[in-house]
């Protein structure tokens, strides 16, 4: 997928070939958006909570250096080994080194979008290390050899029948089983063996607390805990923006995170990791990978407030109808579309345009990131940096000439309407993407401007 040459529009068009599937995908995610609305509306102070979370994160971003140093100091005091990774490559090398030091060639990993962003699984596979993802959804897409399509619900694009098929092929169950209970039990049995035998476990980090040097991992399945508690070595990978100043701030975020994500009041497990058990090792890798560059972009820095709840994906009418894979990046949807161009403008130049700028994403965001406004601003940056398609540039220039001169505009309008009326084939053809599935508006005999001159001429200027 990462190597696909198709852009979002083309991948979305592919996704839309099966309309029933689009409907199913849309309705599944809309159901989650509705659950989110219901639970948010049960909290009278919801908007104040969002504001508090936003301000806490703003404070973190403005003082990131100090909080990172403080976190490192406290974590080290607690007995955690802290590593710093400037980019994805450094991160992957550190993980590889830690696995090698443990003298093993396999690892269990709970959900971590950062490791998806860094391409960790592929890197380790190339170095002969087997990684098994223990989050149910991630395990499914891993068996299907696909990337996650959603940051909270990695296999939301798969129907239960398809999951049954994957388990039939890889986990040896009978064919044609689609009972969710049975499938979950199957995965559970399969993963128990993994948890019991892996000596190294990697988890993500939802929040790291500068004041105490501890970190918090939120899961519904408890899989992060199973992996980390049974292993000798626990590696936690985190983006440097995951910090919060003090433990008391956690309440604000835990109340917002899962309500925004799935409509649950809280994750089933919100596990605090503060120090290694006797004889065991705990490592934290602090990863930059472009985050400090984004921090330096005035218009885009507050995208780093993101707590990865995916509410913006669930609400996005484009995401629901194009699927996560159409974004061809680890973090899909509206938030991914403002994060990805920071990493590679050329590769992700299409993403900020995969939006109608409807603004629903900004409204559901629990940390009040102005996502749709950043999409608009990224468009300006991308065009200025030369990433606009040539045909679009020509079209925009023609439109500008027309709209910059009242006389020319009225002439073009009149001629255009006459052509549409008397030679409709000039616009009603397959070269016109509007006409493919929509009729053109009927051209009226006169524009409002012409009508006004005739009927209200006395006040006409």
């Amino acid at each position: 997928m990462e190597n696909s040459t198709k852009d979002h529009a083309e991948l979305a068009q592919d996704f839309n070939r099966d309309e029933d599937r689009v409907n199913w995908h849309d309705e599944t995610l809309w159901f989650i958006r509705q659950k989110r609305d219901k639970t948010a509306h049960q909290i009278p102070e919801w908007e104040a909570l969002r504001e508090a979370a936003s301000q806490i994160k703003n404070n973190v971003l403005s003082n990131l250096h100090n909080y990172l140093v403080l976190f490192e100091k406290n974590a080290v005091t607690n007995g955690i080994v802290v590593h710093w990774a400037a980019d994805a490559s450094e991160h992957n090398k550190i993980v590889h080194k830690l696995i090698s030091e443990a003298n093993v060639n396999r690892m269990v990993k709970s959900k971590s979008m950062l490791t998806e962003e860094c391409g960790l699984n592929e890197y380790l596979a190339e170095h002969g290390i087997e990684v098994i993802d223990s989050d149910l959804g991630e395990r499914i897409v891993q068996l299907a050899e696909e990337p996650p399509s959603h940051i909270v619900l990695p296999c939301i694009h798969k129907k239960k029948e398809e999951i049954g098929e994957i388990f039939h092929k890889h986990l040896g169950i009978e064919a044609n089983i689609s009972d969710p209970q049975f499938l979950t039990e199957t995965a559970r049995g399969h993963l128990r063996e993994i948890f019991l035998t892996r000596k190294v476990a990697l988890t993500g980090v939802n929040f790291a607390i500068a004041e105490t040097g501890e970190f918090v991992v939120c899961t519904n399945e408890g899989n992060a805990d199973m992996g980390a508690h049974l292993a000798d070595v626990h590696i936690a990978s985190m983006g440097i923006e995951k910090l919060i100043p003090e433990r008391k701030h956690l309440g604000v975020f835990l109340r917002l995170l899962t309500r925004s994500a799935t409509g649950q009041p809280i994750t089933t497990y919100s596990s605090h990791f503060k120090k290694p058990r006797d004889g065991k090792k705990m490592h934290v890798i602090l990863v930059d990978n472009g985050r400090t560059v984004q921090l330096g972009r005035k218009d885009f820095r507050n995208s780093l407030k993101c707590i990865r709840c995916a509410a913006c994906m669930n609400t996005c009418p484009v995401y629901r109808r194009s699927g996560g894979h159409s974004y061809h990046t680890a973090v899909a949807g509206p938030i991914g579309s403002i994060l990805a161009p920071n990493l590679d403008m050329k590769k992700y130049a299409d993403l900020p345009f995969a939006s109608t700028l409807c603004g629903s994403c900004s409204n559901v965001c629990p940390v009040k990131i102005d996502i749709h406004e950043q999409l608009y601003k990224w468009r300006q940056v991308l065009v200025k940096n030369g990433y606009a398609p040539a045909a679009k540039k020509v079209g925009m220039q023609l439109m500008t000439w027309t709209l910059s001169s009242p006389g020319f505009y009225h002439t073009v309008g009149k001629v255009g309407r006459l052509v549409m009326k008397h030679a409709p084939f000039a616009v009603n053809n397959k070269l016109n993407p509007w006409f493919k599935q929509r009729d053109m508006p009927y051209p009226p005999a006169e524009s409002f401007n012409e009508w006004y001159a005739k009927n209200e001429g006395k006040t006409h200027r």
Partner: protein
Amino acid sequence: MKVGLFIPCYVDQFYPNAAIATLRLLQKLGVEVVYPSKQTCCGQPMANSGFEHLTKRCNELFIENFEEFDYIVAPSGSCVLHIRDHLHDDKNPEAAKRISHKIYELTAFLTGVLKVKSLAAKFPYRVGIHQSCHGQRGLHISSMTELVSPEFSKPNSLLNMVQDIELIHLDRKDECCGFGGTFCVTEEAVSVKMGKDRVEDHLKHGAEYITGVDMSCMMHMEGILKRLGSKVKVIHIAEILNAE
């Protein structure tokens, strides 16, 4: 009070009836309305496509045409939002700022400035209202389902003054229709699918007309309705508020 009437380019060219209804409605309410004939476009088509740097002349024209008025009113939420958020002129920054404060979307002007309490309109049909995103989420002319805040709707409060109208309920009352400016052609597949789904919600609940504050969304949904062979029509809210 002197009001400058801003008619967006595509309304001027394709939906003159929406513009005429806006003019007549304001006149009926006793407002002195002037339509400056040298206006063209707010510049949004270029700006939303990433070409804001090409909108210089559009911005200058807008200021030349509308600076003199007490208020500027337009039958569009989207174009008004663009002017409010993005109108600028390096040579005349103050004028641009003044305009962005005195430009109103029609229903916001009727409810907020004129404080209309009753209308003489009659429209005996079942009507679905499409909440155009820029008017709703950008200009806050209605409450939004995502936010925990009191419910209100400026367009609905006006439609409720219309005699014999029946406003229908929708399953998704503020989902985007998928027009999105150049998005409607650059992301044709998703745009059409979004439009089909929006239209279906109105059809399912028995709408005879779909209305809203933005003709651009209506144009997109009209294109889909016509292709489906549906008899359901789109109509700008001004035409309903002005219907007799």
